């Protein structure tokens, strides 16, 4: 029987504080960065970024909250968020001027009037100085002149860098085991060597890179020591002898780590937290992930237990406190972006389980401790991803399933069997591929070794393939017209109209043409951004540990890492697959309607065509039911997209396809015209790699049989598969074993990732009506979990609509 051990009182207290604190905007970082940029126009490129970060390390307030053991923060008040104007700030200024930030439906933040005043006075500086402004200048000419309004690409007329880089994993082994004192020394040695030899050829690039690494390493050590000094100051005042001793231990740790290799479990936890935070301060919090936390910490824990220098209870408490610190991390997003990632999530994903480089099970004591913390704290953040392989211990399966029942979607289940080969397809050798972790939501990469840029632009660069499909049957024109907007114009290739097409082959050819065209432009636009980012937004703090960068003398953004790739994700797979099947069934095989009638029905948003819509929804075999006939276009759709993306290359390396819409399927649905699958304008697109909502009627086994109809190993950037089980389906002694068998069957068949909610729709409806009774109900939303009562209603409804498997 799986057991949750009780939390300590101070953990309970902090958790309570976390759940009750209303997030606010903290402008400490903003002020320092803005002044630094305003005062230093002579600094550019990597030195600007390095010195900007050092300035933060030296001047950010060091603030330690009561009861904390793991310390560090990017602001001065609890659960606040920092601002990152260097990326993009127009959206923030607009919302600030509109006064909506404290009032918005999703993820509101308070702002102090004084701070607001300062922001209003200075914010417009960023209008011409942000990455967005620079990126806009560099967008390809053709895109700017001919493609606005296509509805397929994430890139638009302006503000093309709304989110930061994010979605990377540093090498925490190097950070904990080598320390930044040694890294700085290495950088200094390299510089001296170049100075001695002469900085000839392209070694000037290396020279400046080492210079930046030296600056940020020194800064990071200094930052840690400032926290150490603060602990000493607090210890002096502390009257409780136990806490006083603890504060002194904390000071000792903070004065040691970062510069030196970690000595014990406490050092290592503090080190990975502070290093992670330093990268958030540099590159923003946006799915910057932790990687394989149990692998960094396991040996320290075992050594301390063997030495008798720590008790399991205290170690678990430290881990709890660490999790609460990560949970505290907030990042303000634009109101629009918030709708695709609701519920105050920063996406600092942690990976656990999996194998070592030889394929042996890598589970250790910390693996279980991580699940214990997630389960007993009932936290949606940090998200947890469990790597499953054939040797995953029964006990770990049991602990993971029990945890996901307590905390929806925590952990997610990731299959080594598919992910390792998928990574090998992008050129990573077996031994390193086995060291993969998950980034952000579900994106696999080799943490610490690979610059995988899973979001392409650094943000979620989604491709709306439902719209690409609409362009395919509408001669390259997006049928959607904004009220009062100009008439839609042709933005994609002229592939003809559905009513001119006389065979499925013609339809498929048109779809493939659009997919190829838009994937080409997606990749081209991302590469335009890569060009800008390599100079204007290098990331020396992560590059300091990332395998390959020091050796190559090159920042990760410029291609210094050992492995390089760029990711992408499509949205609307289920809609396109079903739409193709419906055209085939309705127009060509059963001749229920002509292509003209179906075309007219779609263009009319089904108005006047209700009977046809009902036939499509009620009579046509649909994707998601294990019906091979209905599923036959899934593979076509998935392959057409993946092939077009996987062919792409960037300045650093290859592109990698994915399908993980997060909740952007809801948002993109608002801007996608009616589709042949009976969907009306504005309705959500299909979730993850799933079928159109509510169309799977034969239970989880048939659903899985359908989903397994395309090759997920071509989706190296991750797939996302949500399943919701009714709790009664898993009751009884064998319930967990049966659930496990279902998951394993999915993985055997080539499934990559599964995330489960074990909750009934009745419970969710009740939670919608009585949020006060469900404050701690965590559900998996998409690529992340959230407190159900904290997500917007459209997303709540989408969760309820997802088919409930069982009984």
């Amino acid at each position: 029987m799986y057991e949750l051990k009780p939390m300590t009182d101070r953990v309970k207290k902090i958790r309570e504080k976390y759940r009750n604190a209303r997030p606010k905007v903290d402008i400490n970082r903003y002020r320092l960065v803005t002044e630094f940029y305003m005062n230093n126009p002579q600094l550019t490129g990597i030195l600007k970024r390095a010195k900007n970060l050092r300035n933060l390390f030296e001047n950010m307030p060091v603030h330690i909250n009561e009861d904390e053991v793991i310390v560090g923060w990017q602001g001065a008040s609890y659960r606040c968020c920092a601002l990152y104007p260097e990326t993009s700030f127009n959206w923030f200024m607009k919302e600030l001027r509109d006064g909506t930030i404290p009032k918005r439906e999703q993820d509101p933040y308070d702002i102090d009037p004084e701070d607001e005043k300062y922001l209003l006075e200075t914010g417009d500086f960023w209008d011409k100085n942000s990455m967005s402004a620079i990126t806009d200048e560099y967008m390809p000419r053709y895109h700017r002149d001919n493609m606005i309004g296509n509805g397929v690409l994430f890139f638009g007329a302006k503000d093309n860098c709304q989110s930061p880089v994010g979605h990377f994993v540093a090498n925490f082994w190097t950070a904990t085991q080598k320390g930044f004192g040694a890294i700085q020394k290495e950088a200094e040695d390299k510089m001296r060597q170049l100075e001695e030899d002469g900085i000839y050829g392209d070694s000037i690039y290396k020279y400046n890179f080492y210079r930046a690494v030296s600056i940020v390493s020194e800064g990071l050590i200094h930052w840690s020591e400032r926290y150490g000094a603060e602990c000493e100051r607090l210890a002096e005042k502390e009257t409780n002898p136990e806490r006083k001793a603890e504060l002194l231990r904390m000071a000792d740790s903070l004065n040691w780590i970062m510069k030196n290799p970690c000595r014990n479990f406490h050092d290592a936890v503090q080190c990975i937290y502070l290093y992670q935070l330093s990268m958030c301060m540099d590159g923003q919090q946006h799915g910057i992930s932790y990687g394989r936390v149990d692998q960094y910490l396991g040996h320290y824990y075992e050594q301390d237990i063997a030495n008798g220098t720590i008790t399991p209870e205290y170690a678990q408490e430290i881990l709890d406190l660490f999790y609460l610190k990560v949970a505290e991390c907030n990042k303000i997003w634009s109101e629009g972006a918030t709708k695709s990632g609701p519920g105050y999530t920063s996406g600092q994903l942690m990976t656990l389980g999996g194998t070592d480089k030889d394929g042996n099970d890598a589970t250790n004591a910390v693996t279980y401790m991580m699940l214990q913390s997630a389960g007993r704290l009932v936290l949606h953040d940090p998200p947890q991803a469990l790597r499953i392989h054939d040797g995953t211990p029964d006990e770990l399966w049991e602990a993971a399933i029990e945890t996901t029942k307590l905390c929806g979607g925590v952990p997610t289940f990731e299959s080594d069997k598919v992910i390792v080969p998928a990574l090998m397809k992008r050129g990573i050798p077996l031994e390193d591929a086995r060291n993969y972790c998950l980034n952000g939501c579900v994106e696999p990469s080799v943490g610490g070794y690979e610059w995988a840029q899973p979001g392409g632009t650094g943000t979620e660069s989604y491709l709306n393939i439902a719209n690409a499909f609409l362009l395919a049957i509408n001669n390259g024109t997006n049928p959607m017209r904004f009220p009062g907007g100009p008439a839609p114009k042709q933005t994609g290739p002229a592939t003809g109209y559905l009513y001119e097409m006389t065979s499925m082959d013609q339809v498929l050819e048109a779809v493939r043409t659009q997919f190829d065209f838009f994937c080409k432009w997606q990749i081209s636009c991302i590469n335009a951004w890569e060009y800008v980012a390599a100079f204007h937004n290098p990331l020396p703090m992560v590059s300091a540990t990332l395998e390959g960068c020091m050796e190559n003398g090159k920042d990760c953004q410029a291609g210094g890492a050992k492995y390089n790739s760029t990711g992408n994700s499509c949205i609307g797979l289920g809609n396109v697959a079903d739409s193709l099947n419906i055209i085939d069934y309705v127009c060509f095989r059963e001749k229920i309607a002509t292509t003209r009638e179906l075309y007219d029905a779609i263009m009319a948003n089904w108005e006047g065509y209700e009977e046809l819509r009902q036939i499509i929804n009620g009579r046509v075999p649909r994707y998601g039911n294990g019906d091979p006939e209905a599923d036959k276009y899934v593979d076509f759709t998935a392959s057409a997209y993946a092939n077009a993306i996987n062919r792409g290359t960037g300045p650093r390396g290859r592109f990698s396809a994915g399908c993980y819409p997060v909740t952007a399927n809801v948002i993109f649905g608002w801007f996608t015209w009616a589709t042949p699958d009976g969907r009306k304008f504005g309705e959500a697109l299909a979730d993850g790699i799933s079928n159109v909502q509510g169309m799977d009627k034969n239970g989880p086994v048939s659903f899985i049989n359908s989903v397994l109809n395309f090759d997920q190993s071509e989706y190296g950037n991750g797939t996302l598969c949500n399943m919701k089980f009714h709790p009664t389906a898993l009751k009884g002694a064998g319930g967990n074993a049966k659930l496990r068998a279902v998951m394993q069957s999915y993985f055997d068949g080539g499934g990559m990732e599964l995330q489960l909610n074990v909750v009934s729709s009745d419970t969710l409806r009740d939670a919608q009506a009585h949020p006060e009774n469900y404050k701690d109900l965590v559900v998996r939303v998409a690529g992340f979990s959230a407190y159900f009562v904290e997500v917007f209603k459209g997303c709540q409804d989408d969760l309820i609509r997802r088919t409930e498997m069982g009984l």
Partner: protein
Amino acid sequence: MEEKVLTGKLYDIQGFSVQDGPGVRTTAFLKGCPLRCPWCHSPESQAFYPQLSWISMRCQGTELCKSRCLEACTKGALELGDTREDAVSGAEIQMVHVKRDICDNCGECAEVCYPGALFICGKDYTVEELVKRLLQDKRFYERSGGGVTISGGEALCQPEFVLAVLKRLKEEGIHTALDTTGFAAWSVVEKVMPYVDLFLYDLKHMDSEKHKAVTAVPNEPILENARKIAAAGGKMQVRIPVIPMFNNDEANIRKTAEFCKELGDAIEVIQLLPYHNMGVTKYLRISDEPVAEATTPSDEFMQKLKRIMEEYGLPVTIH
């Protein structure tokens, strides 16, 4: 000469069946049953012929569908019925009503009811059609130690079809369970037995008179078949639906336990199934006659029955 293709009549196929036998199973529900248990939670399983079924929740209203079903019915068996409030829009929906005394289950209305509020329950499958469908889920059987359950109705009322399906499944190496009332000729049971890995065997009452009064058939063939299965080395999970005011008295439970004891090693487990009322609304899908509803036995009461049976050294679970 035209060769007659063997078909069976099913009313449902359910994947992820986790309550009927070991592991994850797919259950094929065959239509038609000689018993008439009033607590039956699948009333659509009883008749041997296809039936017009009606699910009010799916009806989108005559305004939206332009009363297609009413127009399609040439027998005059449909009329306007109740109204209900649409859950999403809040609008009032005019539904239809099936006049059961006139309806001959021809299915003309179901043809045009696209949302499937009206549909024909009962579909013929050839052996290969069914086996192909069941094999789709093979990977789940393998991972979970599951397989296929043939259920009903009373599947043994379609003996040739069941035999052919079971044979094919065994050829494919699939674990098979037969969920049965046990009310069949021994000659039928004997034939299928070599292809059945596990019987899910219902025992409803030990007194034949009472059995007949309530379920419409006596219990002697049922008990006799159970003995013969046990004697022939068959394995069974005995299932006892616990029905208030019918079979839940201590005397009957003790007699049932004694009988099970007699079956010896054949019994893997005895499952006590507390009555539930989830089938009640299903009756209204196929008739206007509501069915009597009983109260669900308490956990405490179920535990008591379990303890009584355990006194006989039997393995008992509450399902």
